[in-house]
């Protein structure tokens, strides 16, 4: 009996799942490295790194969100918005991408649209500390100080619960 097909099937069964899992894991490492560079003050290097991650793996919504966040940090609101839009195309229920869009809308002065998308993000988000902060800022700008205070307090409380 020729054992070669069995051997190839065995290889496919054992290595195959690892191969499938390797892409997201490598992508996660790639995104983390880019974020770390930016965190260390090397924003341009971080941007170059995350763009390379996207070139290598363009279907990862998370990479587009990281790019959006870094562009936001750099002050390039237009490009950041395009990145968050791309992330939402790939993952329409991404709370992080919606939060990013909300921040840009708020910075552009469209407070009502920002409030709507951030409230939407809050419903989806299992980690809404940042969203509470942004909503607090919007309520503060809208003159609803009690609403702002409630969101800031809620954000602090959630952060403490997460990191306990």
């Amino acid at each position: 009996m020729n054992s070669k097909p069995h051997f190839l099937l065995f290889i496919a069964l054992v290595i195959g799942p690892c191969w499938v899992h390797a892409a997201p894991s490598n992508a996660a490492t790639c995104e983390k490295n880019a974020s770390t560079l930016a965190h260390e003050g090397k924003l341009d290097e971080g941007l170059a790194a995350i763009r390379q991650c996207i070139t290598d793996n363009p279907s990862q919504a998370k990479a587009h969100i990281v790019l959006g966040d870094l562009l936001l940090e750099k002050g390039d609101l237009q490009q950041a918005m395009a990145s968050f839009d791309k992330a939402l195309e790939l993952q329409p229920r991404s709370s992080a991408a919606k939060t990013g869009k909300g921040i840009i809308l708020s910075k552009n002065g469209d407070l009502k649209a920002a409030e709507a998308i951030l409230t939407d993000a809050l419903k989806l988000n299992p980690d809404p500390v940042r969203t509470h902060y942004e909503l607090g800022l919007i309520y503060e700008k809208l003159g609803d100080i009690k609403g702002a205070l409630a969101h800031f307090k809620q954000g602090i409380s959630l952060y403490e619960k997460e990191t306990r």
Partner: protein
Amino acid sequence: MPVKITTYFPFRQKTCLIILVMTFTLLQSSISSPALQSLGVGTEGPDLTLQDSRGTKQKFSTLKGDKLTMVLFWASWSRQSEMALKQMEKLHQKYKNQGLSVVGINVERQTIDAKALTDIKGTTDRLQISFPTLVDHGLITFHDYGIIAVPTTVILDKDRKIIFEMSGFPLVGARDMIHFLAAAIEGKAPPAEVAKKTGYQPDKKAVRAWNMGAKALKSERTAHTAEMWFKKAISADPDFILSHLSLGSYYQEQGDIGKAKEQFQQALTRKPDNASALSKMGLLLLNEGSIADARTMLEKAIKADESYVPSYYYLGYLTGKEGDMKKATELFASAEGLNPMDYQINVYRGKMFEEKNDIEQAATSYKNALKQLLNRK
């Protein structure tokens, strides 16, 4: 008729009296003060990998001394850091060939930009610091160690076990630290007074059990076992204050204030000048409305350790509640002078304003606290 102090103490004597009082105050700052939020003598210091000022990554394992490693957390904005850096340089020169490694960790601010790097380099060049200085980007090591005030000195053995901790740079504390270090490096016996303060090392079984409790608290699934581990630690070594404080804080989170108080009291019975125990007890008393007792505890905490930041903002909150906003502002400012990265300063300021119905100021304070937390992420 009331007698004026100058009647008994004319100018020269009055000056002497002031010097005497100041000396006494400085002597109050003892070495036994807790410098780390959730670690302490006997526990393992977290590992670290940080960049030096040229951007090269450095690991603890390559920097550590053959015998001891002295880590100084410092910042150019902190008044006492300069004094501490100068002293560390002297110790580095004296003991670098005898097994001591000195490492400076700059904790300037959350995000280090080009200006911050210039400030750091400016300080180390001006003071001619020759030991390695690392930069804590994102304050990760700062939070891992739970630094309460800047500067903070931590001495670790070759297995990274914490054998000494000191927050701030108090006169007597620094002197004791030098004696302690000389004894450890040169194998000499420290002066009896220093040995009494620094000689205690917790039982290993107690530290192991405490570590298990601290780890258990990090997961919701295992958090309920923390009580058992802290109790085991106490039974292995009742003098291991950290176990009482951790068990007390655990009970406090569970809402069992009676048991929390009991643990903080146990800690105070063993170490009446422990600023952490005094502050925790002060806050419990404040929350239950025993304002006068709370004030006594918190004032005692500040007297016992002028670098223990929570005592200042708890007392600031209390003072504001009582209506003395000027004094409260000063206390919050003192806390910020010691550790502007502690978000709880803004939380307690927010609570104070909220209770005074100053919603605008309260919202601003909470906003600042949340911003500090988000910067950590």
